[in-house]
């Protein structure tokens, strides 16, 4: 990313926050509709002792689920890229399961795996796994047949073609899947936490709503957004490094 893009992004954010602050004062909006950014920041700071462990738990759940899901998704895609008949058998089912909104499965996950971190990690691994799997499989199978022929003419077998050609050509698609998954991982963590947990930003938000503490709600949203942005930024930066030829 060039410096100009970063600067313009920061300028846009500053304008938005400034406008928000102005609106709240100008129309003297009540806190439960929209608190001012300055108030949110102040609350975040004063509530840091409670927010920090919650943020750490949310980040831990999202990241672990993400790592497990990504690894499983890529591995499964590689296996199915080699096993064509199995792919034809499984793919329609995978697409069907994936098209049901995740939130629908969350209560089941809580029932089966409890209200601790495990249920969140499994939910995240599930959604990330599907996203990465579908992207990776698409990339692995959409290679130039002429390039496959060329490698075969050099005596390459299927495994070699997978390693030398399919996997590198699938990297852009895999990277896209991984990038989209960062945000999805955060959403699923927060939603599942809201439905049942003892600790986490989703839980903090849910409780603060019950207590009608809207500044606290916004403070937790702010922290969750920061985690999400950093996560997305790091994965995007790695993507630009690894997929340098695009």
């Amino acid at each position, binding site marked *: 990313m060039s410096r100009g893009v970063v600067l313009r992004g920061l300028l846009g954010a500053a304008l938005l926050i400034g406008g928000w602050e102005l609106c709240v004062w100008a129309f003297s909006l009540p806190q439960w509709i929209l608190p001012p950014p300055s108030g949110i920041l102040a609350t975040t700071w004063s509530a840091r002792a409670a927010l920090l462990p919650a943020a750490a738990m949310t980040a831990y759940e999202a990241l672990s689920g993400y790592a497990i899901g990504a690894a499983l998704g890529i591995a499964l895609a590689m296996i199915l890229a080699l096993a064509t008949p199995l792919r034809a058998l499984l793919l329609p089912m995978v697409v069907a399961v994936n098209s049901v909104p995740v939130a629908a499965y969350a209560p089941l996950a809580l029932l089966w795996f409890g209200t601790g971190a495990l249920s969140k990690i499994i939910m995240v691994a599930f959604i990330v796994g599907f996203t990465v799997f579908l992207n990776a499989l698409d990339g692995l199978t959409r290679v130039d047949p002429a390039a496959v*022929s060329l490698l075969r*003419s*050099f005596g390459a077998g299927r495994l070699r073609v997978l390693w030398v050609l399919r996997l590198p050509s699938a990297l852009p698609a895999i990277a896209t899947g991984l990038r989209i998954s960062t945000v999805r991982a955060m959403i699923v963590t927060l939603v599942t936490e809201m439905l049942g947990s003892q600790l986490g930003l989703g839980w903090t938000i849910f409780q603060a709503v019950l207590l009608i503490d809207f500044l606290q709600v916004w403070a937790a949203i702010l922290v969750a957004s920061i985690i999400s942005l950093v996560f997305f930024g790091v994965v995007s930066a790695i993507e630009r490094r690894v997929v340098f030829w695009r």
Partner: protein
Amino acid sequence: MKLSISGVGKNFGAVRALDRVDLDIAPGEFVTLIGPSGCGKSTLFNMLAGLLEPDAGGSILLDGKAGALLGRTAFMPQRDLLLPWRNVLDNALLPCEIEGLPRASSRARAEKMAVDFGLRGFEKHYPQQLSGGMRQRVALMRTFMFERDLMLLDEPFGALDALTRSMMQRWLLDIWERYRRTILFITHDIDEAIFLADRVVVMSTRPGRIKLDRPIELPRPRDAHLLTAPEFTAIKRELLDAVEEESLKSFSA
């Protein structure tokens, strides 16, 4: 390596791509193959490279022996197919890597060969950073790194401008004389076909057959002046007539 093709044909469903092709190529020979578009030249190459089975009845013998062809010939497809995530040297090393040759010695060989192929100083460049002519030289070098006596080059200079193309032709002859391989070379350009070859083979419209097999006895080494020499023009006229006849057929068909 001696290549004998006899009675080789190919159907794709209802389309008869190649009829009965009979062709013999002697070791060290440079043979060019011309013919109308869609007459089955690439199909023939795919069969010679072992990527496609000929229809029953045809046989392809290398040094008089039948058997699996995959990995026996150095095949260069119509497009360069360089891998964008590999630099020039790593692209050229691809066949050696697949063969499982020791990396250090292959690398040393590639570094030496890069000089002959005019790629010195570009070893670490990526394909996206090269001109069309250079990309084609990398693809050719990759084919040479796969050390097989018989090389199948499918329109290697097809996408190049006329100037680069004639330079590459002289350069290829130079390389061929130095490395001494048997080359079968597809082209659409009659000048190129004559300039390079010991023999020009003309194919008919689809279904492809060998229409004409014309030895070219022009002296070597050959240079650009040859293109305007009377003996060259005479051969060219003869071949043009044959090709023209076939092209007309393919339009009226």
